[in-house]
């Protein structure tokens, strides 16, 4: 999608919202203008703190999931021994809905940031491991020949083949995981904390302050969009070879 297309999409969405709010004409659905005014007046007083908490949680779990998941995916993809040992574990653990583990994680780590981050980590982590492993499995043997015939070390092979070949699928998995992670982030922030976009939105809802509630939803969505765009930009930089034509 080009920048102009994205802009058109946003404009269309706001127009639709506007139209609906005019038709419904009740506090339940305030007009986008009101929400925008509200955001601009309370953003730095209240929303900003919540946003930084949410961002901190999601970025930290993302970074941890990459640090642990990427090497593990590479190992499983490249070394048959590692695959044989780890595959059953990953295979069994992957389909478990991570959110269902939240009670256990909270019992172990309390209701604070740690349990939220661990749950987000688990969601992103498994996606990364599986995507990277599959990407490496998909590399044809011939791709390794020029390196192996040069007596390349594992380090050479990682830098020249494994890493670049798995990047596109790695980014795709990040994107997929991010959508789930943001929903789950919202859910985990509705209890055990007084900071975070989830808390902010639910608190506004309980106070029947619909304009604030919508402000929170808009900011959380914008946050998700920004994270998506960030991944896109990094991918375009890192995988330039995929976009030549």
């Amino acid at each position, binding site marked *: 999608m080009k920048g102009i297309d994205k802009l058109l999409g946003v404009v269309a969405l706001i127009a639709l919202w506007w139209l609906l709010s005019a038709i419904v004409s009740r506090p339940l659905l305030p007009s986008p203008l009101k929400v925008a005014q509200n955001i601009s007046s309370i953003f730095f007083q209240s929303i900003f703190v919540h946003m930084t908490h949410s961002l901190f949680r999601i970025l930290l779990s993302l970074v941890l999931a990459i640090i642990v998941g990427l090497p593990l995916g590479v190992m499983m993809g490249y070394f048959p021994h590692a695959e044989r040992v780890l595959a059953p574990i990953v295979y069994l653990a992957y389909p478990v809905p991570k959110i269902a583990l939240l009670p256990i994680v909270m019992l172990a780590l309390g209701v604070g940031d740690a349990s939220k981050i661990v749950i987000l980590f688990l969601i992103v982590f498994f996606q990364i491991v599986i995507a990277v492993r599959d990407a490496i499995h998909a590399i044809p043997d*011939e*791709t390794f*020949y*020029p*390196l*192996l*015939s*040069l*007596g*390349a070390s594992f380090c*050479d092979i990682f830098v*020249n*083949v494994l890493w*670049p*070949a798995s*990047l596109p699928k790695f980014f795709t998995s990040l994107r997929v995981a991010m959508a789930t992670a943001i929903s789950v982030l919202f859910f985990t922030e509705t209890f055990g904390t007084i900071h975070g976009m989830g808390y902010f939105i639910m608190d506004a809802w309980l106070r029947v302050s619909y304009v604030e509630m919508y402000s929170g939803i808009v900011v959380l969505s914008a946050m998700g969009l920004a994270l998506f765009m960030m991944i896109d930009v990094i991918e375009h930089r890192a*995988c*330039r*070879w995929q976009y*030549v*034509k």
Partner: protein
Amino acid sequence: MISFRNLCVSYGRQNEKRVALNDVSIDIPTGSVAAVIGPSGCGKSTLLKAAAGLIEHDSGSALIDEKPVNPHEQVIGFMPQSYGLMPWKTVRDNIMMAVKIKKRMSSVKREDVDALVQKLGIENLLSLYPAELSGGQQQRVALARVFLLRPDVLLMDEPFSSLDAITREDMQEIFLSLWQDCHVTTIMVTHFVEEAILLGQKIIVLSKSPGRVIAEIDNSLFGNRNAHESEEYMRLAERLHELVRKGRDA
């Protein structure tokens, strides 16, 4: 010298082994080019992979200068059937990859790279990716990579087969002229009789799978593009066609 001594190679697990090469013995003297020809699936690529130390063999040996093939010790220039360029590397990085891995960067002079790239006519493609190149251009990049490496041995798997006739003739000329500069010991796999006669000082004919050597012919017409009309060329081409046909149907 590259030597195969009673080399046997097979694919698959113990119980269902499929023999690909059966008792192959060949010597390719240092500083010469051998062309290997044979029907499709006869084990030509397998022979090169064995020479490059990429696959295990069941028995016999593959030797470079009387030492068992070892990619960590010898410098092997291997050009796979599909060129072996990394799609995620620019032409420049692809060319430099081999010397970097062999830690020979310090001995490669800028002028050498420039001259080689110029000779191959790819000086304007250096910042492109392989996907942006034609087949012939990719081929040139692959040649630049192996020749920059200055390997002990050069192994080329049907390097020019997928090119159109005109481009193929150009590439054969370029190869010959690069080879004349360094005389690297070379095995070149081909399935064209004409190419074998042009580029092989020794022509080795393999039978259909499992591949055996059915003929080893010393070729005096090597490098002579104008021999096409001569009596000798006709006779040799006829004989090779005959051998390949016999090897295929045997």
